[in-house]
C-alpha cells in the first residue's frame, strides 16, 4: 500500500482508529491528523467515544488528502484500520478495504456484556484466531502493543506503539511524527512516547501471540457462606438482598444456603446482617461449624 505524499494532487485516504475507550484512540488519531496537516494536506476527523466496554463505540475517522470533503469513512473504504483490541478489530473489519492495512493490538478486553456466568467467569468472546480474518486480503500487522508498552514502563503508550506500526507504512517523515508526538502527548511523557514510537516502527508482527486463545483467569475462588443459626433471627434481610437468591428461611427461624456453589462472594449478606450471623469465607470449607 502506498500513501505517499506528493507535491501534486494527493487522493484522499482514510484511517479508522477503533478501541474500547481509555486506550488513547483519540490522541492517536489526533496525532495522525496533525502530522498530515503539517505535511500540507487537508484533514478531516470525526470521532465518537461511547465506551465500547459498555456496549457503545469508540472510534475516530481520519481522512486526509489534497482536498477532503467528508470526515467519514464508508463501509469498505478505509485504507487502514488500527484496532486497539482484538474483538473491536473484528467488529470494524467491514470498514476496511479488502486489501487495506490492518494494524491490530492483540490485547483482549472482555466487555461485561460478554460474561455468560459471573461466577465461573465464562465469557463469549471471539477466539484469537487468524481464521476470523479470512476474506481480508490486505496486510495484517498483529502486535502485542500493550505487552510491549508494559515493558517500556507505561501501559499508556500502547497507542504510540501502534502509531509507530502505522507510521512505518505511511510515508510521512519520521521527524515530523516525532515533533507532533512531542507536542501532543501529556507533559512529562515525551521520552517514553518517543521510545514507544520507535519500538512500533521496528516491531515485527508477533506470530507467537496468534497461538494464544482466551483462557479464563485461573483460580476462581470458592466461597463458603457460614450461617450462625444460633445468632440468626430470621429477619429476612439476607434472603432479600442476596443477588443469587440462594438464601432462604429454614423453617426453624433461621436461614440456610440452598445452592452453596452459586455464591459469588459478594458479601452483601454478611454486611447487611444486623446480627453478625453470616460470614462469607473465601476458602473452601473448613471443618463444620460456624463462628463462635
Amino acid at each position, binding site marked *: 500500500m502506498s500513501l505517499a505524499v506528493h507535491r501534486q494532487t494527493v487522493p484522499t485516504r482514510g484511517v479508522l482508529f477503533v478501541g474500547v475507550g481509555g486506550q488513547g484512540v483519540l490522541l492517536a488519531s489526533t496525532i495522525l491528523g496533525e502530522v498530515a496537516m503539517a505535511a500540507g494536506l487537508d484533514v478531516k476527523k470525526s470521532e465518537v467515544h461511547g465506551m465500547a466496554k459498555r456496549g457503545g463505540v469508540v472510534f475516530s475517522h481520519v481522512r486526509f488528502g489534497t482536498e477532503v470533503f467528508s470526515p467519514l469513512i464508508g463501509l469498505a473504504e478505509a485504507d487502514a484500520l488500527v484496532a486497539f483490541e482484538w474483538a473491536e478489530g473484528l467488529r470494524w473489519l467491514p470498514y476496511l478495504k479488502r486489501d487495506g492495512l490492518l494494524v491490530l493490538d492483540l490485547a483482549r478486553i472482555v466487555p461485561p456484556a460478554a460474561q455468560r456466568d459471573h461466577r465461573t467467569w465464562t465469557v463469549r468472546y471471539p477466539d484469537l484466531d487468524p481464521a476470523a480474518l479470512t476474506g481480508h486480503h490486505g496486510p495484517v500487522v498483529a502486535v502485542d502493543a500493550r505487552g510491549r508498552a508494559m515493558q517500556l514502563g507505561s501501559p499508556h503508550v500502547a497507542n504510540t506503539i501502534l502509531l509507530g506500526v502505522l507510521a512505518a507504512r505511511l510515508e510521512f517523515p519520521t521527524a515530523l511524527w516525532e515533533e507532533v508526538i512531542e507536542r501532543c502527548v501529556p507533559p512529562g511523557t515525551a521520552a517514553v512516547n518517543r521510545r514507544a514510537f520507535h519500538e512500533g516502527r521496528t516491531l515485527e508482527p508477533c506470530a507467537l501471540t496468534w497461538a494464544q486463545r482466551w483462557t479464563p483467569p485461573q483460580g476462581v475462588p470458592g466461597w463458603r457462606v457460614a450461617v450462625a443459626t*444460633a*445468632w*440468626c*433471627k*430470621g*429477619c*429476612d*434481610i439476607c*434472603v*432479600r*438482598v442476596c443477588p443469587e437468591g440462594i438464601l432462604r428461611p429454614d423453617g426453624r427461624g433461621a436461614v440456610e444456603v440452598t445452592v452453596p456453589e452459586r455464591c459469588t462472594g459478594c458479601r452483601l449478606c454478611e*454486611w*447487611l*446482617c*444486623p*446480627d*453478625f*450471623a453470616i460470614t462469607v469465607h473465601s476458602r473452601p470449607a473448613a471443618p463444620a461449624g460456624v463462628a463462635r
Partner: protein
Amino acid sequence: MPHILCPGCGHGIVAGALLRAICRLGLDQDTVAVVAGIGCSSRLAGYLDFCTLHATHGRAPAFATGLKLARPDLHVIVITGDGDGLAIGGNHLIHAARRNVDLTCLLFNNEIYGMTGGQLAPTTREGGVATTAPYGNVEPPFDACRLLAAAGATFVARGLAAQPLVLEELIARALAHRGFAFVEVLTDCPEFHGRYNRLGSGAAMLLGQIRATAAVEAHLAPLASTVVHPGLPPVRPPVETGVLVETTRPEFGDRLRAAAARWADAREDHAP
C-alpha cells in the same frame, strides 16, 4: 451474643460498619473508648470489647467530654440514638459540638423511641404514628445534621444502614477527624416505627432506603417522598447523605490545657 435487638433492626448493621472502620484504621482496642447513653442503639456498647461506659439517659456526650479531657490519648466514640441524643440529651450534644471536643458521635436515627415502647421522638416524620401520637405527629422533625452543623461540629456526615460500605467509609473519616465529628445514621425500627406506620419488615424498610436513594440519584426526588410503587411501603423523605461539613477549629481540650498552662504561669509570676 445473640444481641437483644429485634429481628430486622438495622442497628447491628451500623455496629458492624463501626467495627470494620475501627479495624481499618488499625486502632488498638485499649485506646478506644465507647460511651453510650440509654436506648436500643446504646445497648450495643454492651457487646463491644473496648473500654465502654454506659452513661445515664442523654448524658453520653457529657461523660465523653470528661473522659476525653482526662485521657486525651483515647479515641472516644459516643453511641446515641435520636431520642437519647436529640431530646433528653439535646443540650449535651449541641454543647459538645459547640466546644469542638475531639469525639466521634454516632447517632442512630430510627425516628422513634424503640426501647421504651414506641413514643414520639423529635425525629419522627410529620404524620408518623407513635404510641404518643396515635393520630399522627403534628410536629416538624429535627434535621440532626443541620442542627449539629449550626452548633459548630467540625465534621458532619449522614449515612444509611442500608449502605454499610458507604457508612464504614463515613465512620472511618469521622474517626480520623480531629474535633467533634458527628455521623447520623438513618436506620430502621421495624418493631415500633415500622409496625405502627405499616412500613413492612426490617428488610422492607432497608430496601426502601435503597429505593429512595436510587430515586434521588435518578432525580426522581418528588417520587421518593411519596410511594415509589403502589404496594411497596412509603419511604423516608429524601435527605442529603455523605459528608456535609468538614472544617477545622481549635479543639476544646487543647484550648483548655493551654489556658490552664497560662494560669499556672500567672500564678507563679505572682508568687511571693
